[in-house]
């Protein structure tokens, strides 16, 4: 059973507990295990735009270094954590001023130079486990369920660094949904922004953006939206009302694998 160093992130301990919980349960069922990093710290939640500041990147570097010590790939589930950690890892790999200063500050025995491989849970499902193997483990196929995959921005862009999927026409979530027996609906706004952190300073603007996504999904016959990002889910859910269900991809995965008990979180 392949073991991964797991960085859950703060939201997954609070608001997005189902994202974390089902990720662990499904992993066990699919034959890999998530070993939570000891004493991990908040990833910073946003990749810092200031190019000369190391402080907001240090916690990500610490997590990466810990994974290196374990000799394991670092797995994430939250799209925002994945985005920050993957990009910081790239900064360290590039070895510029930021990498140099971060290493001097942290004073590891050997400098961290981006050695750890950062993978998202979906990438493991696609590249390591394989959708065929997942299909074989499905116990309750989601037959006839019209599910729309909502990617948002964090997993896809900047595509040169994220290397996750084609940013303009991604397919990993649709392929997963198809493997689970669902009827994936490709809707045009699936890779448009949900409004993101604008919800903090201009809820109206964020609402407008999120509404476009929801309306477009409805127009294309989507009955349920799945995402990997707690913030996307929050924004979309807010405007969706009762018209459309917004879930984490791990929830539908757990449902199809027969891990979900009636009535929500089976903690």
């Amino acid at each position: 059973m392949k073991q991964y160093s797991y960085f859950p992130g703060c939201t997954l301990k609070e608001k997005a507990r189902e994202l974390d919980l089902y990720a662990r349960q499904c992993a066990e069922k699919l034959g890999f295990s998530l070993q939570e990093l000891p004493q991990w710290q908040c990833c910073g939640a946003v990749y810092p735009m200031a190019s000369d500041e190391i402080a907001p990147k240090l916690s990500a570097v610490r997590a990466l270094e810990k994974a290196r010590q374990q000799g394991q790939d670092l797995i994430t589930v939250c799209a925002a954590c994945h985005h920050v950690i993957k990009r910081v890892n790239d900064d360290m790999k590039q070895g510029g001023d930021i990498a140099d200063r971060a290493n001097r500050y942290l004073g590891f025995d050997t400098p961290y130079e981006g050695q750890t491989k950062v993978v998202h849970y979906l990438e493991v499902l696609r590249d390591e486990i394989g959708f065929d193997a997942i299909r074989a483990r499905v116990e309750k196929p989601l037959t006839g369920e019209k599910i729309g995959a909502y990617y948002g921005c964090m997993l896809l862009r900047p595509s040169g660094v994220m290397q996750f999927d084609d940013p303009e026409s991604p397919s990993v979530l649709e392929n997963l949904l198809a493997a689970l027996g669902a009827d994936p609906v490709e809707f045009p706004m699936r890779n448009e922004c949900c409004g993101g952190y604008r919800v903090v300073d201009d809820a109206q603007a964020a609402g407008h953006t999120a509404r476009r996504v929801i309306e477009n999904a409805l127009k294309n016959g989507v009955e349920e939206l799945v995402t990997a990002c707690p913030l996307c889910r929050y924004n979309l859910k807010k405007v969706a009302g009762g018209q459309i269900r917004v879930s984490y991809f791990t929830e539908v995965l757990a449902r199809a694998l027969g891990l979900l008990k009636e009535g929500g979180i089976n903690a």
Partner: protein
Amino acid sequence: MPKIGVFVCHCGSNIAGTVDVEKVAAAARTIPGVVVACDYRYMCSEAGQETITKAIREYGLDGVVVCSCSPRMHEATFRRAAEREGLNPYMVEIANIREQCSWIHKNREEATEKAIVLMRAAVAKVKRDTPLTAGRSGVTRRALVIGGGIAGLSTALDVANAGYEVDIVEKEPTIGGKMAQLDKTFPTLDCSACILTPKMVEAAQNENINLYTYSEVEKVSGYVGNFTVTIRKKARFVREDRCTGCGACMEKCPSRKAKNEFNCGLNTRSAIYIPFAQAIPNVAVIDAQHCLKLQTGKCGVCEKVCAAGAIDYTQQDELIQREYGAIVAATGFQPIRPYQFGEYGYGRYPDVITSLELERLMNAAGPTDGELRCPSDGRKPKNIVFIQCVGSRGQTCRDKSYCSKICCMYTAKHAMLIRDHWPDMDVHVFYIDVRTPGKNFDEFYRRAAEEYQVDYRKGQVGKIYEEDGHLMVQGSDLLEDRQVLMPADLVVLAVAVEPSPDARKLATMLTASMDNNDFFTEAHPKLRPVESPTAGIFLSGMCQGPKDIPETVSQAGAAAAKVIGLLSKKELTANPCTAHPEEVRCNGCGECEKVCPYGAISYEEKELRVMGRREKRRVAVVNTALCQGCGACTVACPSGVMDLQGFSNRQILAEVDAICR
């Protein structure tokens, strides 16, 4: 000791303003071997040259050093002057004390000191100069033009009209190239075919021009003036000497599913076909992949209906070998297929098309007989959105870094024509910049925007998607500073141009250099724009870089002038400053061949006398007709046996010694 004369030029104040020229001459006089040294206001003038020739005569000079401008400017002048006086021209050396000294320094003392050093180095070199004689070779008075588009045709016609034989090799079944596919041309809006087809006919009828259509260059050997080229004439399965172009075979052919290349795949054609009505030669060709007879052995309809008995299913490719004095690359371009731009949905939405596809949709001979229709369902579009710079001017690996140059003008043309023919259609153009330099070009664009009310919007499009049966275009309007979302029935992408994919293979055969984008490189970007750095290879049209039709025709004419200049020579004088290996010490390792950019080095088994014994050895041999004297091999040679005449290792070390003394 050889007798050397040193002549220091003032170049008005260009040199004398910063360098104490008298001091340089005085310093020269102290060098052993220098028997005369003087300065003069303009050494390149008649009187200045006279000073040099007089000194050669009076002092019996063996070598001359002129301290003046760059050798690129007047080396030839001074060499000719020396030659007139009976001195071998290669016994003249230039010390560049202008571009490399006076122009770049301010301090007079330091500049003078540096000028003296440069002079000293030149004197050290000239003492080791040996008289060189240029070799001569003949010229085959026939040119090969590769590519039969407007560039190749123009070059070929100009060369042919000057009285020289020209062969055109065209890979497609007809000449005409991309221009044949265009509907109208900017900025005059005259019909493209109407101005192109007379040129095609003229080329076909010119007795000096020989067309090889449906043919490709297979192999090139030789050197300037004496190329040998193998041409592969692909099997047409139709005898050119018999086919009358009547078209009966096309009508009866039962296989009709092949994509019509001439119409950019917007409709289909029969397996036996003539690309378009004015094709030259007007001869059918069988597309073997779609021909039932050639694939399954069953059919043979075309053979039965052909009254001329021209069909020959057994035809094979034919290899033809021909000699040429000059070769012109005119391989042209292709528009990119923008599949990598997922945001525009080309390939996903049939109503997202490229500009060349639009040309066919607007052309009377196109798939819709000139009526603009949406490819998806044939309806008449109401809203048309153009997107410029698709794949051009980008900074990511998806894009070309360059500006494709023609798109702003043809988009203005398309927009204007649509508004003119169908005033009820709305036309929007998204642009980064509108670039319209050229005679009557900006006026043309303004007419589109002002007179024809085309809605130009500065900004880019981020997404195209389908909603309620039509396309939605999501973009930014930078001038209004807001996001825009507009419905569209038809979206036209002004895609980047790129060199023909065959160009790279050809460049390798020709040993002609290319840039990172696979455009052929010119010998000098300003002063030798139509010549390749490889002697005898010339460039015409888009294969050298993006250009419109007028520019292509001008460049094609310039290339023709260069070809005529070459072919008119009885014999060619080679540059004697070429590489020579010292055979006895050469171990045939192969390093020099690897670095030679001109393919001038090969290896031969030679019988040599080494230390009194005869032995057979593999040694490097330089083809002096191909060698351009770049010196790369002399540096690469691990045993130091490759030497450049006129720039020998010994001479260069002597110069270094003189500078460091």
